């Protein structure tokens, strides 16, 4: 019975992402549309992309993306179009530049430091282990 009561909650989760229908001529265009709307940020609700958002502006931007795809523009052109109007903040994959280099390099740097510390630790441990084996 309790489980039955929880059922409506499951149904509600389906309605969270925004749905509107755009017909594309090719599968490639449909994929472009899907990728672009997932990579463009909704500026009103900043932690959502425009594919997921129900905000009015997100819907307008989805329509705009669909229109530009149908005009034959590629992903780079459409991303540029959005960046020109809304700034780099609008894209979830910011371009590599002097102002974003920290963002791109930091994960690698942290990984390398962590790997260095880890390897040094392992080496020291095994050296100690060898040492104590020699002792016995």
């Amino acid at each position, binding site marked *: 019975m309790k489980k039955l009561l929880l059922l409506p909650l499951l149904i509600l989760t389906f309605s969270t992402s925004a749905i509107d229908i755009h017909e594309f001529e090719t599968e490639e265009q449909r994929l472009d549309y899907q990728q672009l709307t997932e990579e463009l940020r909704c500026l009103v609700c900043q932690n959502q992309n425009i594919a997921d958002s129900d905000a009015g*502006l997100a819907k307008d*931007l989805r329509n705009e993306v669909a229109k530009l795809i149908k005009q034959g523009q590629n992903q780079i052109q459409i991303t540029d179009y959005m960046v020109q109007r809304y700034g780099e903040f609008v894209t979830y994959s910011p371009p590599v530049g002097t102002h974003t280099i920290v963002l791109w390099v930091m994960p690698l740097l942290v990984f390398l430091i962590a790997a260095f510390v880890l390897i040094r630790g392992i080496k020291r441990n095994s050296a100690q282990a060898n040492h104590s084996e020699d002792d016995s």
Partner: protein
Amino acid sequence: MNKTVIKALIPLLIFLSLVILLYSGLGKDTRLLPSALIDKPIPEFNVPSLLTGKRIDNETLKGQMYLLNVWASWCPNCRIEHPIVTEFVRQNIIPVYGLNYKDEPADANAWLNQFGNPYKDILVDIDGLVGIDFGVYGAPETFLIDAQGIIRHKIVGELNPYNIQNEILPLIKKYK
């Protein structure tokens, strides 16, 4: 300093750099985005006027410095802003044009009848496409545009005595 002291200080250093990082982010309003269009010419448009029905395009407004105020009858903060816009226009510094953003013309006209019309002219943007070209992401927003049609400043949210005094007026002086 010997090695153990240095080692003991490492966690403290990491902690301090985190404190600096997080502290610098405190109090920042992340909803305020800088406009990508500052110091760029206004986008091309050609829309009807709400007041006269005549077409207005980006060339029509050239030759004067003006404010372009994005508003709509459905926007509660535009109502709050309205007396401030009216007062600004009364001072006769530069004209204010309206961009009626994603609104029904009938609703917009009713709004103007109720509160009064401070705008010299009003651009109609029913589907929000002019708004997209201007990088508008909500209403109200206000652009300062110089006589050459270059966007010099953008205020996100309402105009208020504070941002008029400290942002708008100094920039009007600078670019006039």
